[in-house]
């Protein structure tokens, strides 16, 4: 929709050109959320497109996803064959409530910064041990695990003027065996519970709970637990008040779906060689 209070769009080409952050500013990445709701408090958009951050880079240790990388770019990336966790990328992209048309515009960083419990890029990057790099308004920089970056429903550790630059995924995480489960109130609807399990090279089992809870929750085990241990751990580690409530699922249902899908993941990963 038209954002009628916007009077100016800045187009910085480098970090040095980023304007001084003032009240009424908003970063414009894809804009798919920004333009989807009235934003009467905003006066200026700072367009990140011309910073021309490389969307996806494979480094020695990390797979780097620029905050401005679109969902479609990520989904379309030709992953190396040893990234056996890479099916998670498409599984998480398909968990968007929005269609493939939005994926062409929406960005990975935008989804993470929205910090909705059902944000599938949060599910993906937190399950893969992603580290967020944040450019601070003072010129500094800090890194935070995505798991910790999200603090609640539409809450995160960004301060005014902070800019999410990128997410670094350790290559080791992409080489883990993984399993994915998601459920929604409707066949292709918004995730009400989205769980990702993985096994690392030391046989450690990690379960990342998202969508069901107001923030991502990681449960780690030295090895694949027995059914009852997994269940008890979930019941103990995730108190009822962490289960999200909104129109897309009642908390008690999300809790039971978490227990159910966790067991499915456990069974799947245990069954594999």
């Amino acid at each position, binding site marked *: 929709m038209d954002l009628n*209070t916007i009077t100016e*769009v800045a187009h910085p080409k480098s970090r040095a050109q980023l304007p001084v952050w003032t009240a009424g500013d908003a970063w414009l990445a894809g804009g798919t959320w920004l333009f989807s709701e009235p934003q009467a408090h905003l006066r200026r958009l700072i367009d990140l497109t011309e910073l021309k951050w490389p969307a996806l880079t494979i480094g020695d240790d990390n797979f780097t996803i620029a905050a401005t990388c679109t969902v479609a770019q990520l989904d379309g990336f030709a992953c190396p064959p040893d990234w056996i966790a890479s099916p998670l990328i498409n599984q998480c992209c398909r968990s968007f409530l929005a269609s*493939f048309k939005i994926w062409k*515009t929406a960005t990975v960083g935008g989804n993470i910064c929205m910090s909705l419990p059902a944000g599938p890029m949060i599910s993906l990057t937190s399950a893969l041990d992603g580290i967020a790099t944040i450019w601070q308004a003072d010129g500094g920089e800090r890194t935070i695990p995505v798991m910790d970056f999200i603090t609640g429903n539409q809450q995160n550790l960004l301060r005014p003027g902070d800019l999410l630059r990128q997410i670094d995924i350790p290559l080791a995480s992409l080489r883990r065996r993984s399993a994915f489960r998601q459920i929604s109130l409707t066949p292709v609807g918004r995730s009400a519970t989205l769980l990702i399990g993985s096994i690392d090279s030391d046989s450690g089992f990690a379960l990342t709970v998202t969508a069901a809870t107001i923030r991502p929750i990681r449960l780690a085990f030295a090895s694949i637990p027995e059914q009852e241990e997994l269940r008890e751990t979930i019941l103990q580690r995730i108190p009822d008040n962490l289960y999200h409530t909104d129109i897309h699922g009642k908390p008690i*249902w999300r809790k039971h779906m978490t227990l159910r899908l966790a067991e499915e993941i456990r069974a799947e990963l245990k069954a594999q060689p």
Partner: protein
Amino acid sequence: MTFDINGKTFAKTPRAGQCLRTFLRDLGHFGVKKGCDAGDCGACTVLLDGEPVHSCLIPAFRAEGHAVTTIEGFAPDGGTHPLQQAFLDAQGFQCGFCTAGMILTCASLNQAQRQDLGVSLKGNICRCTGYRSIEDALDGKRNIEDADAGTAFGRSLPAPAGPLVVRGAAPYTFDTKIDGLLHVKLLRSPHPHAKIVSIDKSAALAVSGVHAVLTHEDAPKLLFSTARHEKDWMDPEDTRVLDDVVRFIGQKVAAVVAETEAAAEEGCRRLQVDYELLPAVFDPAEAIAPGAPALHGDKTVERRITNPARNLVAETHGEYGDVAKGLAEAAVTYEGTFTTQRVQHAALETHGGLAWIDANGILNVRSSTQVPFLTRRGLSQIFDLPPERIRVFCERVGGGFGGKQEMFVEDILALAALKTGRPVKLEFTREEQFIATSTRHPMRVKVKAGADNDGKLTALQLDVLSNTGAYGNHAGPVMFHAVAESVSVYNCPNKRVDGVVAYTNTLPAGAFRGYGLPQGLFAVEAAIDELAKQLSINPFEFRRRNVVKPGDPMLSPPPSQYHDVLYGSYGLDQCLDLVERAMSAETPRHGLAPEWLVGDGMALTMIDTVPPAGHLSDSKIALREDGGFDLTVGTAEFGNGTSTVHRQIAASALATTVDRIVLKQSDTAHGGHDTGAYGSAGIFVAGRATQHAAENLAAAIKALAAEMTEGDAGSCVLDNETVVCGKRRLSFAELAKAAKARGGVLEASGSADGTPRSVSFNVQGFRVAVNKATGEVRILKSVQAADAGRVANPMQCRGQIEGGVAQALGAALYEELVIDDGGRVINPRFRDYHLPSYADVPRTEVFFAETSDAVGPMGAKSMSESPYNPVAAALGNAIANATGIRFTSVPFKPDRLFPALHEKYGETKT
């Protein structure tokens, strides 16, 4: 900046925060539609460098340097792209508002996406079709046929507007450019109940571009109802154009009229309103309890409010026989309380319109309405203007479903045009649509029923509490309808009905497809099923023993003042047989795990073919010099398909083909009267008027031909665009010339008054699988049989049924407008109000009873609303059959079903 749009270069710089959608429309590309303006519905889809995007989410400046393709530029040189042709051949549209975006999206799908349409099309909402005809278009199916002269009625002919619809060239309400247009934005109440003490306009008026601020001080004092009925007495007079009391969050407080939407919005933000807060009540039971704040305590029963002090808008009480005795003597009884939620029409075109005063001093209103003639009447009353000084009309309307049987915008548009003397526009946002138009009436229905050992009903009792929200538009008639045909379709010696409808400080409810019957049926059909189960009688058989048959009185207490409903035809028996036979076919389990519980359910509905107390329609038809005809009707087209059928009726009566008939419609300037396109009257009543007009013209043609041939009119017959009198054959064009030579034209008119009325029937069957561990519901089979009399257009009628089932499934499974404890709508957007998408809607097998109605035009009956009616009830019965649990509230969402399933079945091993 310069932009490449459809291969042409445009030099124009968009506003800083402007999205591509409005930029394209500003440049005249009206095929780019607004359904939600939030990226959820896909109606604004365009191609950017060949890739589909939602143009409402794209900052306009980003399109610079990229090739933009809108539906207008999709086929080169204004031709027809093969996919556009496929949508025409399959008739993959109804109202057509989603079609441009649907076609552009479908055109971009690769083979993998074409195999996965549930996912690929989740960003494209169609509210009308139920998606089957869209799938047909993608499969290259041809659903239309041709018809020779005089044989159009009963054939699957395409909608006349189709070629325009698929090219994005069919004009809808806002698809026009008017010089000097001012924009209206509304300040809405943040409080559920408050008195407006003062409004300081000064800061708003100081905004550059603001022309006027309108408040209750500018508004006429007259009280009216936004509901439009042929008879004003059906609704309470409780509404002002702008009131000094607000009774729900979202009610309009003031209107700002400005050069731009931006200035009008800024003006609204700068208005200073001093409210005196009043106590509010949100629950209908609390609202009618003693001591509750009275919403309309300032009004009297003269305003047709049954008891203003008790928030009682209307009530009904009556009994035949002795229900207590009937229950006491029953072999089996059932008692239950059922609740239905707030759901919204969600027509993709929002409410809104344009108004201006023309050179002759006529107030013109072009709006998205189902009722132009009754809106003119309302404006005439409110503004004390003679009807001939007002013209109300609609172009093609982007969906209605009853939501546009209201006057939500025309009153304020007229006020703004009259005050400023300028053309004005008001276009609701999707959020306004959700918080400030109307919904279905939420109801709590208590049912008691009993039957004897022979499976005959001995008692049937309903007790209804309906919530109309802050205003009483449609409050009484919907409640009366909820307890009418739902009860009268059954023979039972002892019946009792109690119903009340209450005001609450919430968004008003209004007319919605089915008009109360879906709510009433949800309880009655469940009770009928429960009795059948207790008696171990098959639910089809149980209903056969109890439903009315021709000759039986159709009774619902108290006695009705209307006695004009008759069995013009009767196909309920066939509908029951058709669905039972179709349901008896086995369905494969498709690999469903054992935790999926499978069950069948069905429900039936009867509906009067016209609302009571009169529904009027005039049609005119004239022979053109080229031998074709100009047909003028009052009824509106919003995807219901009546435009197709009116031409079919006229072409059949006049021995011509539909392409020879040019239809003009829904404009008070054309003269005559039409009560409106509601109550499924577009064919049954308006079509009757067209039939009369065409038959009168046929008689006039024969009379002239007889005169010219010196023969006998009685022996002249119309045949293939000619009239044959003995051995002479005169073409219609010759007759038109002869008439002109005699100083006239051949023309005729016809009228219908909506009485007597007949009855239509539908039976719905479902086979469902319910996952006892998750609460998910899958529909394995969906069957509906309809008694529509002689079916005017089988393809379109099937589309109405499929669309009705899809819309009702949305309400039964997903949709719910939630109002919080403070009276605020918490989910006013499509991403939080889940409309059925392609993936959500099963295919429905559709069957027609073979009947021909003695009352309806050429044997046809209404079939727009009733397909919706039995769906939730049938689904509830199927879920009960599958799970052994009777769920009594809709929607049947997994998280709602889960607790009872969990209690019964416990943790299920996966």
